[in-house]
């Protein structure tokens, strides 16, 4: 019963992710494309939850949907004056791109379906890592995981009861680098987007 419900839910989520993504490509109206993108990304967040990656899912919602996408919409609205809402590519472009896209999809799908590399013993369901938030935080702080497979019971609460045994580098350096990178990006974005005198129409 429960399995059935979850399978239905999974199917819905897959469809919610894939179909709007296709719609993003198909629709010519840029604002609608953004809204389809919202659905697709929200579906992806749902998939993350389904995969047990709660933190990643919530981050996807908060940053991607709540932040990035709003920015995109902003951009659309600030630039979507008249003719630019429905910019169309030529049919030739369409034909070529669909050809390339489908060949890529075919190759990738072919690769996924290859039993030669897909060894089920190698890829087994390691279960949802419910206690992952704490582990993610510890990894960010530089405590690498001792054992990638969850040794703890899945339902264990994430109050830190057993501190990590050994201290290593973990993800502290990438974390710091990303933080500094973000600051630089913000400064750069503010610099690029600052109010400027609109230059006179160029003749050349």
């Amino acid at each position, binding site marked *: 019963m429960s399995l059935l419900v979850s399978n*239905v839910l999974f199917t819905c989520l897959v469809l919610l992710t894939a179909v709007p993504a296709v719609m993003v*490509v198909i629709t010519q109206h840029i604002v609608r494309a953004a809204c389809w993108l919202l659905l697709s990304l929200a579906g992806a967040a749902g998939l993350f939850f389904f995969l047990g990656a709660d933190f990643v899912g919530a*981050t996807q919602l908060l940053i991607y949907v709540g932040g*990035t996408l709003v920015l995109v919409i902003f951009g659309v609205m600030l630039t979507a004056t008249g003719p630019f809402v429905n*910019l169309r590519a030529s049919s030739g472009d369409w034909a070529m791109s669909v050809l390339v896209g489908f060949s890529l999809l075919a190759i990738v799908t072919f690769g996924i379906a290859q039993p030669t590399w897909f060894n089920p013993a*190698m890829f087994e369901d390691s279960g949802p890592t419910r206690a992952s938030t704490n582990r993610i935080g510890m990894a*960010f702080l530089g405590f690498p995981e001792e054992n990638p497979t969850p040794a703890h019971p899945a339902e264990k609460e994430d109050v830190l009861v057993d501190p990590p045994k050994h201290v290593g580098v973990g993800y502290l350096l990438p974390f710091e680098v990303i933080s500094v990178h973000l600051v630089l990006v913000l400064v750069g974005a503010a610099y690029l987007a600052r109010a400027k005198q609109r230059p006179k129409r160029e003749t050349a």
Partner: protein
Amino acid sequence: MLIPSLQIYLLVGAVLFTTGLLCMVTKRNAIGVLMGVELILTASNINFVAFSRYGKLGLDGQLVSLFVIVLAAGEAAIALAIAMNFYNNFETIDVDRASNLKG
């Protein structure tokens, strides 16, 4: 009725990737191109998290996808700033017009 398995996730990722690519190719609007990029990044995130669950990637998959999300946010901010600048300078958002650097 789909049963959750690694292949399904990878397939969803592949679809998202392809649509993202198509989006980048077919959209002449600069922000449309940006959306394509976001789709591609999401596709890769789905793969990372799926491998984190089903593969030997462990927590690393989630962590990498977190980094990707955060970087994507920064990238979006910069891309939008560039788009704004582009729009201000050329009075258009059509990427085909942005060919000043062609040889």
